[in-house]
Protein backbone atom coordinates (compact mmCIF):
# COMPACT_ATOMS: atom_id res chain seq x y z
CA UNK A 1 0.00 0.00 0.00
CA UNK A 2 1.19 3.48 -0.87
CA UNK A 3 1.16 6.08 1.86
CA UNK A 4 0.79 9.82 1.43
CA UNK A 5 4.07 11.54 2.33
CA UNK A 6 3.25 14.63 4.35
CA UNK A 7 5.72 17.50 4.02
CA UNK A 8 4.77 18.93 7.40
CA UNK A 9 7.96 19.56 9.39
CA UNK A 10 8.27 17.41 12.51
CA UNK A 11 10.09 19.71 14.91
CA UNK A 12 9.62 17.59 18.04
CA UNK A 13 11.91 18.31 20.97
CA UNK A 14 11.78 16.35 24.20
CA UNK A 15 11.48 18.24 27.48
CA UNK A 16 14.31 17.77 29.98
CA UNK A 17 13.29 19.91 32.91
CA UNK A 18 15.42 18.07 35.48
CA UNK A 19 18.47 17.76 33.21
CA UNK A 20 18.06 14.00 33.08
CA UNK A 21 20.24 14.06 29.97
CA UNK A 22 23.15 14.57 32.37
CA UNK A 23 22.47 11.05 33.67
CA UNK A 24 22.80 9.56 30.21
CA UNK A 25 26.01 8.63 28.42
CA UNK A 26 27.09 10.24 25.16
CA UNK A 27 26.21 6.96 23.48
CA UNK A 28 22.68 7.04 24.93
CA UNK A 29 22.23 10.56 23.61
CA UNK A 30 23.48 9.52 20.17
CA UNK A 31 21.10 6.55 20.16
CA UNK A 32 18.17 8.74 21.12
CA UNK A 33 19.03 11.36 18.51
CA UNK A 34 19.52 8.74 15.80
CA UNK A 35 16.19 7.05 16.52
CA UNK A 36 14.50 10.47 16.66
CA UNK A 37 15.99 11.38 13.29
CA UNK A 38 14.93 8.01 11.90
CA UNK A 39 11.35 8.45 13.14
CA UNK A 40 11.19 11.98 11.72
CA UNK A 41 12.43 10.72 8.37
CA UNK A 42 10.55 7.44 8.04
CA UNK A 43 7.52 7.55 10.31
CA UNK A 44 6.29 11.12 10.79
CA UNK A 45 5.58 11.77 7.08
CA UNK A 46 3.34 8.71 6.64
CA UNK A 47 1.94 7.88 10.05
CA UNK A 48 -1.22 9.96 9.90
CA UNK A 49 -2.15 8.46 6.56
CA UNK A 50 -1.38 4.93 7.77
CA UNK A 51 -3.52 5.44 10.88
CA UNK A 52 -6.36 7.04 8.91
CA UNK A 53 -6.33 4.11 6.47
CA UNK A 54 -5.90 1.59 9.31
CA UNK A 55 -3.02 0.10 7.34
CA UNK A 56 0.21 -1.29 8.73
CA UNK A 57 3.25 0.12 6.88
CA UNK A 58 4.83 -3.33 6.58
CA UNK A 59 7.80 -2.01 4.60
CA UNK A 60 9.00 -0.34 7.82
CA UNK A 61 9.77 -3.72 9.44
CA UNK A 62 12.99 -4.11 7.42
CA UNK A 63 13.91 -0.46 8.03
CA UNK A 64 13.39 -0.93 11.77
CA UNK A 65 15.64 -3.98 11.53
CA UNK A 66 18.36 -2.10 9.65
CA UNK A 67 18.17 0.64 12.26
CA UNK A 68 18.63 -1.94 15.04
CA UNK A 69 15.30 -1.39 16.77
CA UNK A 70 14.54 -5.08 17.37
CA UNK A 71 15.88 -6.81 20.46
CA UNK A 72 18.57 -4.23 21.23
CA UNK A 73 19.53 -5.84 24.54
CA UNK A 74 20.12 -9.29 23.03
CA UNK A 75 23.82 -10.04 22.38
CA UNK A 76 25.42 -9.05 19.08
CA UNK A 77 26.28 -12.70 18.44
CA UNK A 78 22.64 -13.20 17.43
CA UNK A 79 22.57 -10.20 15.11
CA UNK A 80 21.01 -7.94 17.74
CA UNK A 81 22.20 -4.81 19.51
CA UNK A 82 24.05 -5.81 22.67
CA UNK A 83 22.98 -2.51 24.23
CA UNK A 84 21.80 -1.75 27.75
CA UNK A 85 18.27 -1.19 29.04
CA UNK A 86 18.51 2.60 29.08
CA UNK A 87 19.33 2.48 25.36
CA UNK A 88 16.38 0.14 24.79
CA UNK A 89 14.08 2.43 26.77
CA UNK A 90 15.17 5.54 24.87
CA UNK A 91 14.55 3.72 21.59
CA UNK A 92 11.03 2.78 22.64
CA UNK A 93 10.40 6.35 23.83
CA UNK A 94 11.34 7.72 20.43
CA UNK A 95 9.43 5.08 18.45
CA UNK A 96 6.22 5.62 20.45
CA UNK A 97 6.72 9.36 20.16
CA UNK A 98 6.16 8.55 16.50
CA UNK A 99 3.32 6.08 17.07
CA UNK A 100 2.27 3.52 19.69
CA UNK A 101 1.28 1.03 17.00
CA UNK A 102 4.79 0.90 15.60
CA UNK A 103 6.27 0.78 19.09
CA UNK A 104 3.96 -2.14 19.82
CA UNK A 105 5.23 -3.89 16.70
CA UNK A 106 8.83 -3.36 17.83
CA UNK A 107 8.10 -4.31 21.47
CA UNK A 108 6.46 -7.56 20.43
CA UNK A 109 9.34 -8.43 18.12
CA UNK A 110 12.03 -7.61 20.67
CA UNK A 111 10.55 -8.42 24.07
CA UNK A 112 7.92 -11.04 23.30
CA UNK A 113 9.49 -12.99 20.45
CA UNK A 114 13.26 -12.49 20.52
CA UNK A 115 13.46 -12.36 24.32
CA UNK A 116 11.80 -15.78 24.96
CA UNK A 117 13.79 -17.41 22.15
CA UNK A 118 16.98 -15.98 23.65
CA UNK A 119 16.03 -16.67 27.27
CA UNK A 120 14.25 -20.03 26.99
CA UNK A 121 15.38 -21.30 23.59
CA UNK A 122 18.12 -23.75 22.63
CA UNK A 123 21.29 -22.48 20.97
CA UNK A 124 20.02 -23.92 17.66
CA UNK A 125 16.75 -22.00 18.01
CA UNK A 126 18.61 -18.80 18.86
CA UNK A 127 20.88 -19.08 15.84
CA UNK A 128 18.02 -20.06 13.56
CA UNK A 129 15.57 -17.30 14.44
CA UNK A 130 17.22 -14.38 16.23
CA UNK A 131 19.33 -12.95 13.36
CA UNK A 132 16.31 -12.99 11.03
CA UNK A 133 14.12 -11.34 13.64
CA UNK A 134 16.78 -8.73 14.43
CA UNK A 135 17.17 -7.77 10.78
CA UNK A 136 13.42 -7.59 10.17
CA UNK A 137 13.52 -10.42 7.64
CA UNK A 138 11.06 -12.17 9.94
CA UNK A 139 8.23 -10.54 11.84
CA UNK A 140 7.14 -12.37 14.97
CA UNK A 141 4.13 -12.39 17.28
CA UNK A 142 3.35 -13.67 20.77
CA UNK A 143 0.34 -15.79 21.63
CA UNK A 144 -0.69 -15.75 25.27
CA UNK A 145 -4.09 -14.03 25.56
CA UNK A 146 -7.15 -16.08 24.61
CA UNK A 147 -10.75 -15.02 23.94
CA UNK A 148 -11.75 -16.10 27.47
CA UNK A 149 -8.43 -15.62 29.26
CA UNK A 150 -6.95 -12.12 29.30
CA UNK A 151 -5.93 -11.03 32.79
CA UNK A 152 -6.03 -14.68 33.86
CA UNK A 153 -3.62 -16.39 31.46
CA UNK A 154 -3.18 -19.38 33.76
CA UNK A 155 -6.63 -20.55 32.72
CA UNK A 156 -5.67 -20.88 29.05
CA UNK A 157 -7.36 -23.59 27.00
CA UNK A 158 -4.79 -23.95 24.20
CA UNK A 159 -3.24 -27.41 24.48
CA UNK A 160 -0.35 -29.46 23.19
CA UNK A 161 -0.26 -33.23 23.11
CA UNK A 162 2.93 -35.20 22.77
CA UNK A 163 2.50 -37.43 19.73
CA UNK A 164 5.97 -38.91 19.79
CA UNK A 165 7.43 -37.24 16.70
CA UNK A 166 5.67 -33.92 17.17
CA UNK A 167 3.36 -31.88 19.40
CA UNK A 168 -0.25 -31.54 18.32
CA UNK A 169 -1.40 -27.97 18.99
CA UNK A 170 -5.06 -26.98 19.33
CA UNK A 171 -6.70 -23.77 20.50
CA UNK A 172 -6.79 -20.08 19.68
CA UNK A 173 -5.26 -16.79 20.76
CA UNK A 174 -6.80 -13.31 20.59
CA UNK A 175 -5.62 -9.69 20.38
CA UNK A 176 -2.26 -10.65 18.97
CA UNK A 177 -0.17 -7.74 17.66
CA UNK A 178 1.63 -8.48 14.36
CA UNK A 179 -0.32 -11.76 13.93
CA UNK A 180 -1.66 -11.19 10.38
CA UNK A 181 1.83 -10.48 9.00
CA UNK A 182 3.91 -12.67 11.31
CA UNK A 183 6.32 -15.28 9.97
CA UNK A 184 6.58 -16.98 13.35
CA UNK A 185 4.60 -17.01 16.58
CA UNK A 186 5.81 -17.77 20.09
CA UNK A 187 2.79 -19.60 21.46
CA UNK A 188 2.02 -20.60 25.03
CA UNK A 189 0.00 -23.76 25.58
CA UNK A 190 -0.61 -26.35 28.30
CA UNK A 191 0.72 -29.87 28.00
CA UNK A 192 -0.99 -33.06 29.21
CA UNK A 193 0.23 -32.33 32.73
CA UNK A 194 -1.25 -28.83 32.68
CA UNK A 195 2.16 -27.13 32.55
CA UNK A 196 2.47 -24.04 30.36
CA UNK A 197 5.03 -24.53 27.58
CA UNK A 198 6.32 -22.24 24.84
CA UNK A 199 6.51 -23.24 21.17
CA UNK A 200 7.67 -21.59 17.98
CA UNK A 201 4.95 -21.96 15.36
CA UNK A 202 5.85 -21.05 11.79
CA UNK A 203 3.59 -19.63 9.11
CA UNK A 204 2.78 -22.35 6.64
CA UNK A 205 2.33 -25.10 9.20
CA UNK A 206 -0.86 -26.93 8.32
CA UNK A 207 -3.84 -25.91 10.45
CA UNK A 208 -2.29 -22.58 11.53
CA UNK A 209 -4.10 -19.39 10.49
CA UNK A 210 -3.99 -15.74 11.56
CA UNK A 211 -7.26 -13.88 10.81
CA UNK A 212 -7.01 -10.10 11.15
CA UNK A 213 -9.09 -8.11 13.64
CA UNK A 214 -10.66 -5.17 11.80
CA UNK A 215 -12.41 -1.96 12.80
CA UNK A 216 -10.00 -0.99 15.61
CA UNK A 217 -10.18 2.63 16.74
CA UNK A 218 -6.74 2.27 18.29
CA UNK A 219 -3.25 1.21 17.12
CA UNK A 220 -4.61 1.61 13.61
CA UNK A 221 -1.15 1.68 12.03
CA UNK A 222 -0.33 -1.76 13.42
CA UNK A 223 -1.90 -5.09 12.55
CA UNK A 224 -3.70 -7.18 15.14
CA UNK A 225 -5.22 -10.61 14.76
CA UNK A 226 -6.04 -14.00 16.11
CA UNK A 227 -3.99 -17.16 16.06
CA UNK A 228 -6.00 -20.28 15.28
CA UNK A 229 -4.48 -23.74 15.74
CA UNK A 230 -6.45 -26.60 14.29
CA UNK A 231 -4.46 -29.81 14.82
CA UNK A 232 -1.16 -28.10 14.03
CA UNK A 233 1.77 -30.52 14.04
CA UNK A 234 4.65 -28.61 15.65
CA UNK A 235 8.09 -30.28 15.38
CA UNK A 236 9.55 -31.21 18.73
CA UNK A 237 12.60 -29.05 18.14
CA UNK A 238 10.27 -26.01 18.17
CA UNK A 239 9.54 -26.37 21.89
CA UNK A 240 11.38 -23.76 24.01
CA UNK A 241 13.30 -26.13 26.31
CA UNK A 242 13.80 -23.81 29.28
CA UNK A 243 10.26 -22.44 29.63
CA UNK A 244 8.10 -24.21 32.17
CA UNK A 245 5.01 -22.74 33.78
CA UNK A 246 3.53 -19.24 33.79
CA UNK A 247 6.92 -17.83 34.73
CA UNK A 248 7.93 -18.18 31.04
CA UNK A 249 5.41 -15.79 29.47
CA UNK A 250 5.42 -13.49 32.50
CA UNK A 251 9.19 -13.03 32.15
CA UNK A 252 8.60 -11.80 28.60
CA UNK A 253 5.90 -9.43 29.80
CA UNK A 254 8.29 -7.86 32.32
CA UNK A 255 10.60 -7.00 29.46
CA UNK A 256 7.82 -5.65 27.24
CA UNK A 257 6.16 -3.65 30.03
CA UNK A 258 9.47 -2.00 30.74
CA UNK A 259 9.57 -0.82 27.12
CA UNK A 260 5.97 0.37 27.36
CA UNK A 261 6.80 2.55 30.38
CA UNK A 262 9.33 4.40 28.20
CA UNK A 263 7.12 4.30 25.12
CA UNK A 264 4.14 5.90 26.83
CA UNK A 265 6.49 8.64 28.03
CA UNK A 266 7.35 9.29 24.39
CA UNK A 267 3.67 9.65 23.46
CA UNK A 268 3.18 12.01 26.42
CA UNK A 269 6.18 14.10 25.32
CA UNK A 270 4.80 14.42 21.80
CA UNK A 271 1.42 15.60 23.11
CA UNK A 272 3.08 18.10 25.45
CA UNK A 273 5.43 19.41 22.77
CA UNK A 274 2.59 19.88 20.31
CA UNK A 275 0.33 21.48 22.95
CA UNK A 276 3.05 23.89 24.07
CA UNK A 277 3.75 25.04 20.52
CA UNK A 278 0.06 25.31 19.67
CA UNK A 279 -0.67 27.33 22.82
CA UNK A 280 2.07 29.81 21.95
CA UNK A 281 0.81 30.24 18.39
CA UNK A 282 -2.96 30.18 18.79
CA UNK A 283 -4.33 33.68 19.32
CA UNK A 284 -7.61 34.27 21.18
CA UNK A 285 -8.69 37.53 22.80
CA UNK A 286 -5.69 39.16 21.02
CA UNK A 287 -3.04 37.07 22.73
CA UNK A 288 -1.62 33.57 22.60
CA UNK A 289 -3.77 31.12 24.56
CA UNK A 290 -0.56 30.25 26.45
CA UNK A 291 -1.14 33.58 28.27
CA UNK A 292 -4.15 32.21 30.11
CA UNK A 293 -3.83 30.68 33.53
CA UNK A 294 -5.90 27.60 32.78
CA UNK A 295 -3.69 26.81 29.79
CA UNK A 296 -0.54 27.34 31.82
CA UNK A 297 -1.95 25.05 34.51
CA UNK A 298 -2.41 22.30 31.93
CA UNK A 299 1.11 22.73 30.56
CA UNK A 300 2.70 22.91 34.02
CA UNK A 301 0.94 19.73 35.13
CA UNK A 302 1.95 17.95 31.93
CA UNK A 303 5.60 18.88 32.42
CA UNK A 304 5.47 17.83 36.08
CA UNK A 305 4.10 14.39 35.24
CA UNK A 306 6.52 13.92 32.33
CA UNK A 307 9.46 14.80 34.57
CA UNK A 308 8.34 12.30 37.23
CA UNK A 309 7.83 9.62 34.58
CA UNK A 310 11.31 10.31 33.16
CA UNK A 311 12.85 9.79 36.59
CA UNK A 312 10.92 6.54 37.05
CA UNK A 313 12.12 5.29 33.66
CA UNK A 314 15.72 6.22 34.23
CA UNK A 315 15.87 4.61 37.66
CA UNK A 316 14.05 1.48 36.49
CA UNK A 317 16.47 1.23 33.59
CA UNK A 318 19.42 1.34 35.97
CA UNK A 319 17.78 -1.39 38.05
CA UNK A 320 17.23 -3.46 34.88
CA UNK A 321 20.87 -2.99 33.94
CA UNK A 322 21.86 -4.27 37.37
CA UNK A 323 19.43 -7.21 37.04
CA UNK A 324 17.50 -5.96 40.06
CA UNK A 325 14.20 -4.65 38.63
CA UNK A 326 11.21 -6.52 40.06
CA UNK A 327 7.87 -7.28 38.41
CA UNK A 328 6.12 -4.96 40.85
CA UNK A 329 8.55 -2.10 40.10
CA UNK A 330 7.89 -2.58 36.40
CA UNK A 331 4.13 -2.62 37.07
CA UNK A 332 4.38 0.72 38.85
CA UNK A 333 6.25 2.25 35.92
CA UNK A 334 3.97 0.83 33.21
CA UNK A 335 0.81 1.76 35.07
CA UNK A 336 1.92 5.26 36.03
CA UNK A 337 3.44 6.24 32.72
CA UNK A 338 0.57 5.03 30.56
CA UNK A 339 -1.88 6.70 32.91
CA UNK A 340 -0.13 10.06 32.80
CA UNK A 341 0.32 9.78 29.05
CA UNK A 342 -3.40 9.21 28.61
CA UNK A 343 -4.26 12.16 30.85
CA UNK A 344 -1.73 14.38 29.08
CA UNK A 345 -3.14 13.33 25.70
CA UNK A 346 -6.65 14.25 26.86
CA UNK A 347 -5.54 17.64 28.18
CA UNK A 348 -3.51 18.27 25.04
CA UNK A 349 -6.55 17.36 22.96
CA UNK A 350 -8.54 20.06 24.73
CA UNK A 351 -5.72 22.54 24.42
CA UNK A 352 -5.65 22.09 20.64
CA UNK A 353 -9.35 22.96 20.47
CA UNK A 354 -11.08 21.66 17.39
CA UNK A 355 -7.75 21.09 15.66
CA UNK A 356 -7.02 18.45 18.28
CA UNK A 357 -9.52 16.05 16.77
CA UNK A 358 -8.01 16.20 13.28
CA UNK A 359 -5.08 14.31 11.77
CA UNK A 360 -3.34 17.66 11.37
CA UNK A 361 -1.94 17.07 14.88
CA UNK A 362 -0.84 13.76 16.44
CA UNK A 363 -2.96 14.13 19.60
CA UNK A 364 -6.10 12.17 18.80
CA UNK A 365 -4.02 9.35 17.32
CA UNK A 366 -1.91 9.13 20.50
CA UNK A 367 -5.05 9.36 22.63
CA UNK A 368 -6.73 6.48 20.81
CA UNK A 369 -3.54 4.42 20.77
CA UNK A 370 -3.03 4.84 24.50
CA UNK A 371 -6.49 3.38 25.15
CA UNK A 372 -4.97 0.08 23.99
CA UNK A 373 -1.70 0.59 25.80
CA UNK A 374 -3.54 1.12 29.10
CA UNK A 375 -5.27 -2.23 28.58
CA UNK A 376 -2.67 -4.54 27.08
CA UNK A 377 0.31 -6.15 28.82
CA UNK A 378 -1.51 -6.09 32.12
CA UNK A 379 -4.47 -3.74 32.46
CA UNK A 380 -4.28 -0.56 34.51
CA UNK A 381 -6.17 -2.30 37.34
CA UNK A 382 -4.17 -5.52 37.25
CA UNK A 383 -0.95 -3.55 37.73
CA UNK A 384 -2.59 -1.86 40.69
CA UNK A 385 -3.33 -5.28 42.16
CA UNK A 386 0.22 -6.48 41.49
CA UNK A 387 1.36 -3.53 43.59
CA UNK A 388 -1.32 -4.29 46.15
CA UNK A 389 -0.08 -7.87 46.44
CA UNK A 390 3.48 -6.59 46.77
CA UNK A 391 2.50 -4.26 49.61
CA UNK A 392 0.25 -6.63 51.55
CA UNK A 393 1.53 -10.04 50.58
CA UNK A 394 -2.08 -10.91 49.67
CA UNK A 395 -3.09 -11.47 46.07
CA UNK A 396 -6.45 -9.91 45.26
CA UNK A 397 -6.88 -11.62 41.90
CA UNK A 398 -6.24 -15.28 42.50
Amino acid at each position, binding site marked *: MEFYQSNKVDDFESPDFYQIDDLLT*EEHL*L*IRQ*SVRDFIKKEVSPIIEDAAQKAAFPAYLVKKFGEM*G*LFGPTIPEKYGAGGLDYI*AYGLMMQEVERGDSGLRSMASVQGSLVMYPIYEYGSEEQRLKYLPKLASGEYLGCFGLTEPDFGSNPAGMKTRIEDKGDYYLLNGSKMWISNAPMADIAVVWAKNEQGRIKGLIVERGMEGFSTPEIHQKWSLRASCTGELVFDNVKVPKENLLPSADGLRGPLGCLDSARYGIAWGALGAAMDCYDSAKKYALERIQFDKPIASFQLVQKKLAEMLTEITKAQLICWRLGMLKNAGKATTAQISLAKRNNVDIALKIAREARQLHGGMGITGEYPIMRHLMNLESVVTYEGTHDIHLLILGAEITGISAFK
Partner: protein
Amino acid sequence: MKILVCITNVPDTTAKISFIDGDTKFNKTGVQYICGPYDDYALSRAVELKEQHGGTVTVLNVGEAESEQVIRKCLAIGADDAIRVNTEPTDSYFVAEQIAHIASQENYDLILMGRESIDFNSGVVHGLVGEMLGIPSLSPVMKLEIDGGVAKMTREIEGGKEDVEASLPLVLGCQEPIAEWKIPNMRGIMSARTKPLKVVEPVGSGLTITEKYALPAPKGAVKMIPAEEAEKLIDLLKNEAKVL
Protein backbone atom coordinates in the same frame (compact mmCIF):
# COMPACT_ATOMS: atom_id res chain seq x y z
CA MET B 1 40.80 5.35 -2.22
CA LYS B 2 41.80 7.32 0.86
CA ILE B 3 39.34 10.03 1.85
CA LEU B 4 39.77 12.64 4.56
CA VAL B 5 36.55 14.30 5.73
CA CYS B 6 36.91 17.47 7.78
CA ILE B 7 34.01 18.14 10.11
CA THR B 8 32.98 20.99 12.37
CA ASN B 9 31.34 20.77 15.77
CA VAL B 10 28.74 23.55 15.68
CA PRO B 11 25.66 24.68 17.62
CA ASP B 12 22.41 23.15 16.40
CA THR B 13 20.53 25.41 14.01
CA THR B 14 17.73 25.83 16.55
CA ALA B 15 20.08 26.84 19.40
CA LYS B 16 19.39 30.09 21.22
CA ILE B 17 22.50 32.23 20.79
CA SER B 18 23.78 34.32 23.71
CA PHE B 19 27.11 35.51 25.09
CA ILE B 20 28.72 35.64 28.51
CA ASP B 21 31.70 37.31 30.24
CA GLY B 22 30.94 40.76 28.89
CA ASP B 23 30.03 39.38 25.45
CA THR B 24 33.50 37.90 24.98
CA LYS B 25 32.45 34.24 25.04
CA PHE B 26 29.73 32.19 23.43
CA ASN B 27 27.33 30.79 26.01
CA LYS B 28 27.43 27.03 25.56
CA THR B 29 24.94 26.27 28.36
CA GLY B 30 22.00 24.27 27.08
CA VAL B 31 23.31 24.38 23.51
CA GLN B 32 23.26 21.14 21.59
CA TYR B 33 26.18 20.62 19.24
CA ILE B 34 25.91 18.87 15.91
CA CYS B 35 28.15 17.96 13.00
CA GLY B 36 27.98 20.85 10.51
CA PRO B 37 25.12 20.00 8.11
CA TYR B 38 27.28 20.56 5.01
CA ASP B 39 30.02 18.42 6.57
CA ASP B 40 27.38 15.74 7.12
CA TYR B 41 26.74 15.66 3.39
CA ALA B 42 30.49 15.44 2.69
CA LEU B 43 30.79 12.51 5.11
CA SER B 44 27.77 10.73 3.67
CA ARG B 45 29.23 10.99 0.15
CA ALA B 46 32.61 9.77 1.41
CA VAL B 47 30.96 6.70 2.96
CA GLU B 48 29.07 6.05 -0.30
CA LEU B 49 32.28 6.34 -2.32
CA LYS B 50 34.01 3.93 0.04
CA GLU B 51 31.15 1.46 -0.44
CA GLN B 52 31.49 1.80 -4.24
CA HIS B 53 35.26 1.89 -4.64
CA GLY B 54 36.68 0.50 -1.38
CA GLY B 55 39.29 2.37 0.66
CA THR B 56 39.13 4.26 3.92
CA VAL B 57 37.42 7.31 5.35
CA THR B 58 39.20 9.29 8.05
CA VAL B 59 37.36 12.02 9.94
CA LEU B 60 39.31 15.10 11.00
CA ASN B 61 38.13 17.71 13.46
CA VAL B 62 39.97 20.75 14.72
CA GLY B 63 38.38 21.21 18.09
CA GLU B 64 38.42 20.61 21.80
CA ALA B 65 37.45 17.42 23.65
CA GLU B 66 33.73 18.30 23.55
CA SER B 67 33.81 17.59 19.79
CA GLU B 68 34.28 13.89 20.42
CA GLN B 69 30.54 13.24 20.70
CA VAL B 70 30.11 14.46 17.14
CA ILE B 71 33.22 12.58 15.99
CA ARG B 72 31.77 9.33 17.41
CA LYS B 73 28.61 9.95 15.42
CA CYS B 74 30.73 10.26 12.25
CA LEU B 75 32.41 6.95 13.09
CA ALA B 76 28.97 5.42 13.67
CA ILE B 77 27.88 6.62 10.22
CA GLY B 78 30.75 4.73 8.62
CA ALA B 79 34.12 6.49 8.92
CA ASP B 80 36.96 4.11 9.78
CA ASP B 81 39.01 6.26 12.11
CA ALA B 82 39.29 9.82 13.36
CA ILE B 83 41.83 12.47 14.23
CA ARG B 84 41.13 15.39 16.52
CA VAL B 85 43.50 18.33 16.57
CA ASN B 86 43.22 19.43 20.16
CA THR B 87 42.68 23.18 19.93
CA GLU B 88 39.99 25.81 19.71
CA PRO B 89 39.29 26.53 16.02
CA THR B 90 39.80 30.28 16.27
CA ASP B 91 39.92 31.23 12.59
CA SER B 92 39.80 29.78 9.09
CA TYR B 93 43.53 30.15 8.40
CA PHE B 94 44.48 28.37 11.60
CA VAL B 95 42.00 25.53 10.91
CA ALA B 96 43.25 25.19 7.31
CA GLU B 97 46.83 25.05 8.60
CA GLN B 98 45.95 22.12 10.86
CA ILE B 99 44.11 20.27 8.09
CA ALA B 100 46.98 20.82 5.62
CA HIS B 101 49.48 19.62 8.20
CA ILE B 102 47.54 16.38 8.85
CA ALA B 103 46.77 15.85 5.16
CA SER B 104 50.42 16.26 4.16
CA GLN B 105 51.35 13.24 6.29
CA GLU B 106 49.21 10.85 4.19
CA ASN B 107 48.34 10.59 0.51
CA TYR B 108 44.64 11.34 0.53
CA ASP B 109 42.88 11.13 -2.84
CA LEU B 110 40.06 13.34 -1.65
CA ILE B 111 39.77 15.89 1.11
CA LEU B 112 36.07 16.64 1.61
CA MET B 113 34.39 19.15 3.86
CA GLY B 114 31.22 21.20 3.95
CA ARG B 115 31.02 24.29 1.75
CA GLU B 116 31.12 26.29 4.99
CA SER B 117 30.71 25.81 8.71
CA ILE B 118 27.39 27.05 10.07
CA ASP B 119 28.84 28.96 13.03
CA PHE B 120 31.18 31.48 11.39
CA ASN B 121 30.21 30.65 7.79
CA SER B 122 33.49 31.88 6.29
CA GLY B 123 33.47 29.23 3.56
CA VAL B 124 37.19 29.62 2.80
CA VAL B 125 38.86 26.66 4.51
CA HIS B 126 38.70 24.35 1.45
CA GLY B 127 40.36 27.00 -0.71
CA LEU B 128 43.06 27.66 1.87
CA VAL B 129 43.79 23.93 2.31
CA GLY B 130 44.06 23.49 -1.47
CA GLU B 131 46.56 26.36 -1.71
CA MET B 132 48.58 25.13 1.25
CA LEU B 133 48.82 21.63 -0.25
CA GLY B 134 49.26 22.85 -3.83
CA ILE B 135 46.27 20.87 -5.14
CA PRO B 136 43.03 22.07 -6.76
CA SER B 137 39.99 22.93 -4.66
CA LEU B 138 36.39 23.35 -5.74
CA SER B 139 33.24 24.49 -3.97
CA PRO B 140 30.30 24.18 -3.68
CA VAL B 141 30.17 20.70 -5.14
CA MET B 142 26.67 19.23 -5.32
CA LYS B 143 27.43 16.06 -7.30
CA LEU B 144 30.55 13.92 -7.18
CA GLU B 145 31.41 10.72 -9.05
CA ILE B 146 34.83 9.11 -9.22
CA ASP B 147 35.94 7.48 -12.47
CA GLY B 148 39.47 6.13 -12.20
CA GLY B 149 41.65 9.00 -11.11
CA VAL B 150 39.16 11.65 -12.21
CA ALA B 151 36.40 13.33 -10.23
CA LYS B 152 33.30 14.28 -12.23
CA MET B 153 31.43 16.99 -10.45
CA THR B 154 28.56 19.42 -10.65
CA ARG B 155 29.17 22.73 -8.96
CA GLU B 156 26.74 25.48 -8.13
CA ILE B 157 27.64 28.78 -9.79
CA GLU B 158 25.96 32.16 -9.93
CA GLY B 159 22.61 31.60 -11.64
CA GLY B 160 23.24 27.99 -12.65
CA LYS B 161 25.25 24.82 -12.47
CA GLU B 162 28.59 23.86 -13.92
CA ASP B 163 29.81 20.37 -14.82
CA VAL B 164 33.50 20.05 -14.15
CA GLU B 165 36.14 17.32 -14.13
CA ALA B 166 39.43 17.30 -12.29
CA SER B 167 42.16 14.80 -11.51
CA LEU B 168 42.69 13.57 -7.97
CA PRO B 169 43.87 14.60 -5.43
CA LEU B 170 41.36 17.33 -4.73
CA VAL B 171 39.93 19.43 -1.94
CA LEU B 172 36.16 19.85 -2.20
CA GLY B 173 33.60 21.93 -0.33
CA CYS B 174 30.33 19.99 -0.47
CA GLN B 175 26.63 20.77 -0.25
CA GLU B 176 23.32 18.99 -0.81
CA PRO B 177 22.27 16.99 -2.78
CA ILE B 178 25.70 15.37 -3.04
CA ALA B 179 24.51 12.42 -0.94
CA GLU B 180 21.61 11.23 1.11
CA TRP B 181 22.02 12.37 4.67
CA LYS B 182 22.75 9.30 6.83
CA ILE B 183 21.42 8.34 10.25
CA PRO B 184 23.68 6.02 12.26
CA ASN B 185 22.11 2.68 13.13
CA MET B 186 22.68 0.77 16.35
CA ARG B 187 25.30 -1.51 14.80
CA GLY B 188 27.24 1.55 13.65
CA ILE B 189 26.98 3.13 17.09
CA MET B 190 28.28 -0.06 18.70
CA SER B 191 31.17 -0.39 16.25
CA ALA B 192 32.12 3.27 16.77
CA ARG B 193 33.03 2.39 20.36
CA THR B 194 36.19 0.62 19.23
CA LYS B 195 37.22 2.65 16.17
CA PRO B 196 40.45 4.60 16.69
CA LEU B 197 40.25 8.28 17.57
CA LYS B 198 43.70 9.85 17.64
CA VAL B 199 44.24 13.17 19.42
CA VAL B 200 47.14 15.33 18.20
CA GLU B 201 48.38 18.74 19.26
CA PRO B 202 48.11 21.69 16.86
CA VAL B 203 50.89 23.28 14.85
CA GLY B 204 51.33 27.05 15.21
CA SER B 205 48.74 29.14 16.99
CA GLY B 206 45.58 30.99 16.06
CA LEU B 207 45.95 34.51 14.79
CA THR B 208 42.52 35.75 15.79
CA ILE B 209 41.45 37.02 19.19
CA THR B 210 37.74 37.70 19.59
CA GLU B 211 37.23 40.91 21.50
CA LYS B 212 33.48 41.02 21.52
CA TYR B 213 30.46 39.19 20.14
CA ALA B 214 27.21 40.90 19.22
CA LEU B 215 23.85 39.67 18.06
CA PRO B 216 22.39 41.09 14.86
CA ALA B 217 19.94 43.94 15.40
CA PRO B 218 16.44 42.59 15.97
CA LYS B 219 14.13 42.73 13.02
CA GLY B 220 11.87 45.79 13.05
CA ALA B 221 8.12 45.61 12.76
CA VAL B 222 6.69 45.30 9.27
CA LYS B 223 4.91 48.35 7.91
CA MET B 224 2.13 47.61 5.48
CA ILE B 225 1.68 50.30 2.81
CA PRO B 226 -1.45 50.16 0.62
CA ALA B 227 -0.66 49.58 -3.06
CA GLU B 228 -2.16 52.94 -4.05
CA GLU B 229 0.33 54.79 -1.80
CA ALA B 230 3.48 53.88 -3.72
CA GLU B 231 4.93 57.35 -3.13
CA LYS B 232 4.77 56.83 0.62
CA LEU B 233 6.61 53.54 0.21
CA ILE B 234 9.38 55.20 -1.80
CA ASP B 235 9.65 57.95 0.77
CA LEU B 236 10.02 55.42 3.60
CA LEU B 237 12.61 53.41 1.68
CA LYS B 238 14.58 56.59 0.98
CA ASN B 239 14.34 58.42 4.26
CA GLU B 240 13.62 55.83 6.94
CA ALA B 241 15.19 52.59 5.72
CA LYS B 242 17.78 54.54 3.69
CA VAL B 243 18.11 51.76 1.14
CA LEU B 244 17.34 53.84 -1.96
